[in-house]
């Protein structure tokens, strides 16, 4: 009686087990948005501020990203087809500012399950001054899997 004669069946079970255990990666969505935090322009230190009735819409777009919401931070998705994304942010029908984000983008292959994505490097922010006092770039990279505040909006 040979010691190893019964092993083909065990081998087949291991084979099925190994192939059966290969899972798929969960892919993240909305990884192309600039994260903006709101701060009071009157404080010497960075102090979170909340705005009421905030509306945010991309220029030449009909759909709003936010509509009449109370926010202390918000997300602005960047346009893949352009190197500048412009948004209108408002707190009332008459109090509105325009915010233009100028950036460089690079195509990246993330993984076999999640495919391609763009990584952005924020270069400049242009803005009007209805209620925005100033803007600072805190972390210029918008990258898949990272969650960091990219810009600080100092408001009156």
């Amino acid at each position, binding site marked *: 009686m*040979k010691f190893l004669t019964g092993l083909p069946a065990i*081998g*087949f079970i291991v*084979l099925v087990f*190994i*192939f059966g255990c290969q899972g798929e990666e969960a892919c993240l969505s909305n990884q192309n948005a600039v994260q903006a935090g709101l701060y009071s322009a009157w404080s010497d230190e960075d102090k979170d501020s909340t705005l009421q009735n905030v509306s945010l819409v991309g220029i030449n*777009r009909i759909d709003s990203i936010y509509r009449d919401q109370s926010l202390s931070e918000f997300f602005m998705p960047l346009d*893949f*087809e352009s190197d500048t994304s412009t948004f209108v942010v408002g707190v009332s029908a008459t109090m509105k500012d325009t915010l233009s984000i100028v950036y460089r983008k690079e195509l990246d292959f993330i993984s076999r399950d999640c495919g391609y*994505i763009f990584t952005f490097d924020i270069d400049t922010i242009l803005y009007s001054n209805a209620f925005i006092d100033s803007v600072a770039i805190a972390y210029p990279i918008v990258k898949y899997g990272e969650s960091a505040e990219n810009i600080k909006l100092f408001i009156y």
Partner: protein
Amino acid sequence: MGNQPKILSFLFTSLFLFPGFLKSQDSEKGIKANLEEQVQGITLGINLEGPVSRFFDSDKSAFSAVTHINLSPGWFFRGEAGFENLVFSEDNEEKRNYSYESNGSFLKAGMLYDFFSVDERGNNDNIFVGLNYGFAFQEHRAGGYTIKNGYWEDFHGSESTYAVNTHWLEVMVGPRTELFNNLYMGWTINLRVKILQNNSEELSPYSVPGFGNGDNTVNVGFSYVIEYMIPWKK
């Protein structure tokens, strides 16, 4: 007292897994004689890993041929050559937002040591442990991909065909048994470690032929080989 069943269980398991533990001097001589009488020859066989993996991933077609050459008592050369083609199905394209095609082939070569010792004339079974070097060459492309935006327009692009080379080392362990005269069946569990890959920045291979998941640096694989031996020395 309470540990006795555990000790007996351990001894029984040890005897089963490592039958060489309790060898007499006579059995040592018998094992040595059996090793020296071991049939030397070259085997030709197929690895069923590729065909079986098709049941789990119908996008992939793979096949490989394997050879073992008994160089000296206890030492074997192992060689393997094969190919792998992969085309995403429509379901996979939709799920991953890109289409993908890859055609490639691979070579593996290495040495195996047989540490199975048994005092039984004519027993040609083995338990191998070994190290292989693997190399794969493949051409792949993403015929089209979409990056979803969620607010602005989605982006559509494509990546043209280009070649990728991958090198890896593979540690393998597993048994082989002689089912019938000169017909062998064996399986191994393989730990594969990628050591070098060029040209994968723009598009990482979904699967590297002979290596597996292209995203991973370390893969666990398996081989299930049926082979026939052509003896040259008895």
